[in-house]
């Protein structure tokens, strides 16, 4: 019983530590290297992931790539609000580009 209690304590401590340090590590990992809010860092990371995925599927829209560049530029200026705004556009446009590959074919096929 004591062992179980210790394990639970350790896990709780681990979760608490991750809760504090995770976002810090996450923020530090963004391409700018500058401090951003947790939300901005997450939005940028998500946008980078989705744009990368769309690129690998050969369905990346230039609008998604452009918005990601703007988000990365904003990150360099530590402008979290702009990072979130541009990242949202990049993520949405990347997602739409990937979804497009499921559209019906056109023309005499």
């Amino acid at each position, binding site marked *: 019983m004591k062992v179980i209690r210790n394990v639970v304590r350790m896990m709780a401590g681990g979760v608490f530590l991750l809760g504090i340090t995770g976002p810090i590590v996450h923020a530090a990992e963004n391409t700018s290297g500058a401090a951003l809010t947790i939300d901005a860092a997450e939005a940028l990371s998500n946008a980078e992931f989705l744009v990368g995925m769309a690129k690998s599927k050969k369905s990346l829209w*230039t609008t998604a790539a452009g918005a990601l560049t703007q988000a990365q530029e904003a990150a360099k200026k530590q402008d979290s609000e702009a990072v979130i705004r541009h990242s949202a556009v990049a993520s949405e446009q990347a997602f739409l580009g990937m979804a497009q590959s499921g559209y019906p074919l056109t023309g005499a096929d």
Partner: protein
Amino acid sequence: MKQLIWIMSCLGWLAVSANAQATPEDHRLQVVNAVQKLYPAIKFEDYVHGALAFSADAKDQYDAIMAFPPYDSEIEKGAKLWATPFKNGKRYADCFPQAGKNVVGNYPLFDAATKKVVTFEMALNQCRTANGEAPYKHGDMNTMGLLTAYARTLSDGMKMNIKVEGQDALAAFEAGQRFFHQRRGQLNFSCAGCHINHVGNVLRTEYLSMAPGQATHWPAFRGGDYALFTLQRRYAACNQMVRLAPLEIGGEEYNNLEYYHSYLSNGLPLKASVFRK
């Protein structure tokens, strides 16, 4: 009622199986017929002029430019590249039948050994590497672009003669076909949407050319500065215009696309290094 359902079902299966057995040639004819239905007055052989077929003024302008092409010096640079021997003394002409004359109409071809489409540019690079030279970048207009600007003229007048033989070749053809008919980019356009369904319509200020014939005249010198464009560079530019991040020039997707796209021009004569707006 049961009999009617049974008959309808049989007809449905017949339609499905007929569609499944449609050959590349059936498809090419379907595309050509679609264009001919829209523009019965335009002769099939005039499809090589593309959008110029819809405007006598534009065709006159083209003819005037082609009488004395202002980019002749660029083709001469390509001729020099073609004629310059490799370090081992061999030349490009040694790599091709008939010293490279009347061969381009067979490209892209499908190499059954590698199970890949081989474009003429790839064949030129294979020639280089087989003779100890570094390959050119497919998207480099100062090397590969200029070289093809001359080398392709050696096949002027040859008719496009793309072959799709075997299951692997058919798979590459169908991959190109899917690319051509798939909507892409934020503007949600497909190649087929413009160049089959809306042929002859004006998009912004330009007539939309027909897909058959489009692959016959590359590379082209385009616009006011006569910038050199290979066919795949044109694909990249077209993708960019519909807001799709361009794919790799010389990559598998564009190679398959060129294979399918060139097949649509089968039977039409080649004329390289022309002017296009």
